């Protein structure tokens, strides 16, 4: 019994020495670089104004709640931050003759594929982020005033700029 006690004390008295002795140290340093890739824009749906219900002379597709909103997905560097800008108002030309209409775009964006929780991108320049799969979703709507225009088929472009930060 006495012997066991003595051994126990001996081990305990060694511990502080082991704890203090530290004449070597290791550290690791992380080295990192982020390579930005090109951005690919894929159009999934175009904005659909066919036979749309009209309120007065203005027709509008809501980018967040409108079923007729256009949809695009941008593919880039996973988790990378980017800035987006788009042209707010665009001339659409009558393909069948004279006439121009001015289309006002409204764009909403979301890092997940869910239109209803998307956020309206209404400031001039926005800082956004690709999701883990390198994707970001856009829904495109807008409005046009149809008073005083010639009948016809009007077409125009939508331009959105994406730039890595």
């Amino acid at each position, binding site marked *: 019994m006495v012997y066991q006690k003595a051994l126990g004390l001996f081990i305990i008295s060694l511990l502080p*020495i082991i704890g*203090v*002795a*530290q*004449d*070597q*140290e*290791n*550290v*690791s*340093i*992380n*080295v*990192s*670089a*982020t*390579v*930005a*890739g*090109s951005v690919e824009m894929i159009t999934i749906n175009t904005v659909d104004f066919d036979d749309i219900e009209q309120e007065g002379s203005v027709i509008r597709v809501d980018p967040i709640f409108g079923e007729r909103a256009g949809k695009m997905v941008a593919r*880039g*560097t*996973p*988790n*990378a931050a980017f800035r987006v800008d788009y042209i707010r108002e665009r001339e659409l030309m009558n393909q069948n003759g004279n006439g121009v209409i001015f289309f006002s775009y409204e764009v909403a964006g979301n890092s997940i594929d869910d239109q209803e929780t998307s956020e309206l991108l209404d400031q001039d320049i926005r800082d956004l982020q690709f999701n883990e799969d*390198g994707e970001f979703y856009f829904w495109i709507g807008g409005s046009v005033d149809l008073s005083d225009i010639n009948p016809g088929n009007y077409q125009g472009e939508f331009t959105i700029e994406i730039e*890595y930060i």
Partner: protein
Amino acid sequence: MQVISAQDIRFGDYGEYTIEIEDVGLEDLIFEGPINSNSGIHEVELIDSKVLSIIGVKYLDVDVEITADGKLYLDGDPSYDNDPQRSIPFTLRASFANEGENNVTSSRQIGIANTPSMSSGSTRFPILSRRQQPPGPPPTPPTGDFDQSLVNETAYLYFYGQIDVGNVVAGSYRGTITVTVEYR
């Protein structure tokens, strides 16, 4: 044949001296963007180095060993070692300063051998430079009254280098540098 060794005493063996390595600044060694595929050499210069401080007994020598991945790997995954589209060659450079100040201009370069798979180098220096004087007498080993903080000084290690960005896929590339510091 007779081999005659110079006298070499590891004074560090004769006492319980501690050594500490601390980060100066919290950042990693980061190659700042924008970095595009096929954009060639990107450099972190000495003045922008990642800095470590070594806090130890000023009159003792330390051995510093440095090893690093020879490449940065996409998502830090070393299985891309042979995939030139998912790895970026990394050339490590390092230097040290032991004049008691964090000052790159007084630092001296550490020889690093860079190979495609690994970079490594080592050096030995006193925590505080003896400034061309011969070493003094051996230090008194610590006794019960020894307070190491009275004889501590700080030396600095600087890590910098370059990457050569080829035709690689976009994403986050990472590698690791391992530093071991030990009293001689």
